[in-house]
């Protein structure tokens, strides 16, 4: 398959592995965090973690938006779906995510709530257009990648005068979360395999502040296995030279300033929240987005009197440590026993891109 096979060529992979082996300093450890769930998935799916030298440790970061959404927000989505005449539109992977008492949108749907799986926010807009007697609420989640479409949909809805379209906004910001992880003293990260799709929007320069403040190199990497291997090689180079530079490996899609048009739309429609809570990481200042006052008529949080829910993460779940790279999935006593993809207890098991789910599904560790 063109544009895919080139980035999965096993001969090229062998070369890259040889380069990495030649360049590493056997005396030290290299702790590399891949922030994105997409990278976590690729690393496990292609068995990259097994073909790397033993002193390179890949730490799976919190870059899975489905995973990091806090339980009370899921409870609020379920609450919204249960309101009269509402159709809640959601990406499919949100449906299984457990809220309080293991309730989920999937279970709410089975009880009769109108929940529609969509592949794009534009599908939700279409439903709103076709069903004027229903209130269509889009459950907006994701990092900078899925944010521009949400903002665009709000502008479109305004243009079309669609009064029956609302957005429950849960978008979060990547560079802020990276900084929050590095703020923790326990964390030992030598460099980041930087986000692919997020970087297309924000640009590679968006990580400069984090890289400089915390003295960590960042290599923006594509999602294909050869992208990951080449980025690891670049990171080893930077770490060996003690440099905290930013290298853009994913040049076929990412430029330094990002997608300015998308950034402009986001800035027009959305603004930073003072605080947003992350499952597994807790409260992080200015890490989430909400809909600006000017577009409040599309904001489900404003239009519905959303009740506040209180529920904590499961106590014995090690997600907070796993998301910071302090522990591994196998160190958690719930992993593979009480906590499985069918019955996830914590953030990392929730979506196939989560660190624990990827380890459960693909790795050869016992469970």
């Amino acid at each position, binding site marked *: *398959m063109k544009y*895919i096979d080139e980035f*999965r060529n*096993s001969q090229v*992979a*062998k070369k890259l592995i040889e380069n990495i082996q030649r360049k590493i300093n056997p005396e030290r450890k290299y702790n590399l965090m891949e922030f994105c769930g997409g990278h976590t998935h690729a690393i*496990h*799916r*292609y*068995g*990259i*973690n*097994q*073909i790397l030298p033993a002193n390179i440790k890949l730490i799976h970061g919190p870059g899975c938006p489905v995973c990091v959404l806090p339980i009370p927000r899921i409870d609020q989505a379920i609450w919204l779906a249960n309101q009269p005449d509402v159709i809640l539109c959601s990406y*499919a*992977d949100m*449906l*299984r995510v457990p809220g309080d008492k293991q309730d989920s949108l999937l279970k709410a749907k089975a009880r009769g709530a109108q929940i529609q*799986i*969509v*592949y794009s926010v534009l*599908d939700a807009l279409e439903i709103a257009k076709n069903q004027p007697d229903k209130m269509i609420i889009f459950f907006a989640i994701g990092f900078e990648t899925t944010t521009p479409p949400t903002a665009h949909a709000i502008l479109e809805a305004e243009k079309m005068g669609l009064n029956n379209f609302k957005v429950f906004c849960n978008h979060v910001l990547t560079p802020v979360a990276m900084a929050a992880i590095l703020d923790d003293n326990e964390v030992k990260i030598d460099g980041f395999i930087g986000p692919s799709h997020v970087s297309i929007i924000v640009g590679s320069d968006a990580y400069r502040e984090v890289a400089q403040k915390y003295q960590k190199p960042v290599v923006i990497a594509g999602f294909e*296995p050869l992208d990951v291997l080449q980025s690891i090689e670049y990171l080893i180079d930077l770490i060996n030279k003690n440099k905290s530079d930013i290298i853009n490996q994913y040049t076929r899609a990412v430029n330094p300033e990002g997608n300015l048009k998308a950034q402009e739309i986001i800035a027009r429609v959305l603004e930073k929240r003072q605080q947003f809570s992350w499952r597994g990481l807790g409260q992080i200042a200015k890490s989430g987005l909400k809909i600006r006052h000017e577009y409040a008529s599309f904001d489900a949080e404003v239009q519905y009197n959303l009740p506040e829910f209180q529920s904590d993460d499961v106590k014995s779940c090690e997600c907070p440590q796993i998301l910071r790279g302090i522990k591994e999935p196998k160190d958690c006593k719930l992993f593979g026993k009480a906590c499985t*993809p*069918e019955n996830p207890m914590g953030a990392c098991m929730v979506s*196939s891109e989560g660190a624990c*789910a990827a380890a*459960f*599904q*693909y*790795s*050869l560790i*016992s*469970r």
Partner: protein
Amino acid sequence: MKINYKGNIDLTIGAGGRAMNQLIHDLMLAEFDNEFLAQQGDQAILPPANGKLAFSTDSYVVSPLFFNGGDIGSLAINGTVNDLAVGGAIPLYIAAGFIIEEGFPLAQLREIVKSMANAAKTANVKIVTGDTKVVEKGKGDGIFINTSGIGVVENDWVATSPQDDDLVIINGAIGDHGMAIMSKRQGLNFASDISSDCAALNSLITSLAPYQKHIKVMRDPTRGGVSAVLNEWATFYNCSFEIDEEKLLINESVRGLSEILGLDPLHIANEGKVMLVVAKDYADEICTLMKNHPLGQESRIIAKVNPANQVKVSMKTLFGGLRRVDWLNGEQLPRIC
């Protein structure tokens, strides 16, 4: 009076009176035409069979009803035929139950019935008895079909436990059926050329008779795909399997759509594939024989049997790494069979 196929199924047809009788007579009896159905009893009286009987049932709720390469009718016949054939049976008779929603277009019903008749003819089975019910609007989703089938195991073939080093053969590309359905799913609307592999496998399987004592076990990888079959076998027979990714055949469009949707073709349903565990020394010969059959031209060895391991199914990736191949974990898929 003739049936007006421009109309829709209504509750009069469902009431069991003259209208229902006419529909069954003019459509089902005419299309499925055979001597057992012609008895028109509440049961079909069948002649004695020459061996042990195989008996299987399956309900078909696929959505959409019509897709590239088939429809709910051909699927309902082929699916049950295949369930019998992979047990070593020669499929003979099918019972068909229809549950139709009020308002369902008669033209579509006719198309589905004709498709069933064609599939039965191709598979050399007879639809010998049936039932039709109509449910009120909103109580069904167009049409559901249940088929049950009877086959005869004329020889003494029975599935036996796979041994270490045995090999796993499949008769071609994986994931076609599931992806043909997915690409037509509401909200996706991909313009794709993916066609379901929906087909009756009994003649392919019968052609392997000379090697039957070297065939350990057979299964058609439908829902849950190849990974589900291997995981089931590994659990049941207490062994493990190692797939060689390089050997898998996955059509270009299926790969493309899998990439976009984030699906693993190993988890995607097939409706015209059979997986066989065979003795290592005969695997090549069996594969060659399969390639002579129209449904087996792309047959290949894709995996081998290893001693039991806590990782039941693994795959040697194109990268040379080894990864676990797990069951599908409850992804959101449309109804595919």
